[in-house]
């Protein structure tokens, strides 16, 4: 029990340290709140250019939702958590290397994953704040109205999806020990997941092989589940199955993530590549 408390203290210390570092660079801190809009608006503007307006009869016929803005926004909002996994957790060790503090951290009396978990906690809080700000602004500007029944199930789905993404994040952090150029791994993974996940389109428009690939991603279930409750999107997969699959993905991704991280950590120390750039 004292060991767990000890780890939790270390996780929180890492979280607080990261807030302090970010607060030192205030313009960048503010920029992070504006960034989601830069990547979201092209989806909207592209949609407006294609439709000549906001509503799509074709989208309604396949999903039950005709509002392109609301449909895209929910998908994009949920994908914000992918940043937590691929970018914040993935870059955690590489950043320490740049600061020159990686070796000091690695000799601290806590397992290495505790450090990455601290980054996960920080990034989830930070990303959560960004998402609240984003949701407030977009729903106000575009006058979006969501259904609120089933909000607890929405939260459950988001939590399960997030836990699965932590598995991915710890995997990326492990890769960076051996491969160094973490951003290539993060960018490649986040691009592939973004393509396959039905952010601005339903699963039905993907080619069959991508539809099958999408079923292995927590983000797919997260988005279709949340959109079902908030917008009334038709579900191609039943709700109990969505929750069941999210739990399976969570277990598999976390296990694989931890195993890979431990393997890469041992490999890095054995080969003496920890301090290499």
């Amino acid at each position, binding site marked *: 029990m004292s060991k767990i408390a000890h780890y939790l203290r270390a996780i929180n210390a890492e979280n607080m340290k990261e807030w302090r570092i970010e607060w030192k*660079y205030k*313009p*960048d801190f503010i*920029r992070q709140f*504006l*960034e989601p809009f*830069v990547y979201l*608006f*092209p*989806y909207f*503007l*592209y*949609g*407006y*250019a*294609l*439709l*000549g*307006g906001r509503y*799509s009869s*074709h*989208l309604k*016929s*396949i*999903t039950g939702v005709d509002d*392109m803005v609301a449909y*895209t926004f929910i998908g994009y909002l949920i994908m914000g958590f992918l940043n937590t996994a691929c970018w914040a957790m993935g870059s955690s060790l590489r950043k320490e290397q*740049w600061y020159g503090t990686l070796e000091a951290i690695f000799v601290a009396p806590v397992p290495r994953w505790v450090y990455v978990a601290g980054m996960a906690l920080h990034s989830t809080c930070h990303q959560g704040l960004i998402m609240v700000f984003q949701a407030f602004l977009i729903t106000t500007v575009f006058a979006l109205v969501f259904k609120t029944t089933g909000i607890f199930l929405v939260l459950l789905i988001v939590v399960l999806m997030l836990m699965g993404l932590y598995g991915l994040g710890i995997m990326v952090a492990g890769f960076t020990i051996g*491969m*160094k*150029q973490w951003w*290539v791994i993060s*960018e*490649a993974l986040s*691009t*592939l997941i*973004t*393509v396959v996940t039905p*952010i*601005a*389109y*339903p699963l039905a*428009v*993907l080619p069959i092989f991508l539809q099958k690939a999408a079923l292995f991603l927590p983000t797919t279930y997260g988005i279709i589940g949340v959109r079902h409750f908030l917008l009334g999107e038709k579900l191609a997969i039943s709700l109990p199955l969505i929750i069941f699959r999210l739990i399976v993905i969570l277990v598999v991704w976390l296990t694989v993530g931890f195993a890979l991280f431990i393997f890469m950590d041992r490999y890095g120390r054995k080969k003496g590549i920890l301090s290499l*750039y």
Partner: protein
Amino acid sequence: MLKGLRIDVLIEEVRKSFLILLAYPIEIAFWIISPLLWVIPLVFQGRALIGGLTSSSFGKLAGTTEFIPYVLIGAIVSTYMFSAVWSMGNAFRDETYYGTLEHILSSPTPAVYILVGKGIYNSILSTLFVVVQLLICVFIFGLDITLAKILPIMAFLLLLIVGLYGIGFAAAALTMLIKESYGLLHLFEYILFLFSPIRYPVEVNPITRAISIFIPLTYALIALRGLLLGLKFDFWKNSIILLIIDAVIIPLGLFIFYKIEKRTKKTGTLAHY
């Protein structure tokens, strides 16, 4: 500014940059494939919204109803934008991380040679990526390019590169001053990404249309899409505007660089993180 041009310094800078790149071969594959991958969600979004591969509303704004070739060309050309913003912007910041910035700036070679060398390296590299991407589009997506179009395409690409690297010079200088360049470079990227017709015709919104007028990427994309997709465009108007932008932006970029380099040396903040 470039008194007694030292070609050997430029060649050595290019050579050194290629050697560093080859140490991270995964980056090469990434930069070739990624811009094409970023198009895929737009293709799926288009299919979901209109149920096909052509849109009359899109045609009214873009001059072509086929949105896939439109966004493909935007993605390919945006390779130059990312290179100018990120590679040039981080040019000196990377040297700080490597621990070599002080050595470079205290050597008897003027820093502007290093900067131009990095610009040449990034231009060559981006062009190689763009050629491979175009070949992928020709052989996989059936994009039509005739040999007669190659010369004007290259001319417009050259005009674009010069303009974008002018912005890159300023970005490289500002990162020496501000240090935590990430946010600043993102700002450059956001402006270019949102307000130029990379993913959508800027005419869709009055704000994007108004700001796009000041971005060289806008004119280059209009011309390149015109040449590659056979769309109507004013060849001379776009060429002259790009030439004017280049004539302003390159001296301005170099001026900003000189000023900031001098300032950081004077205040002694060069080695700060």
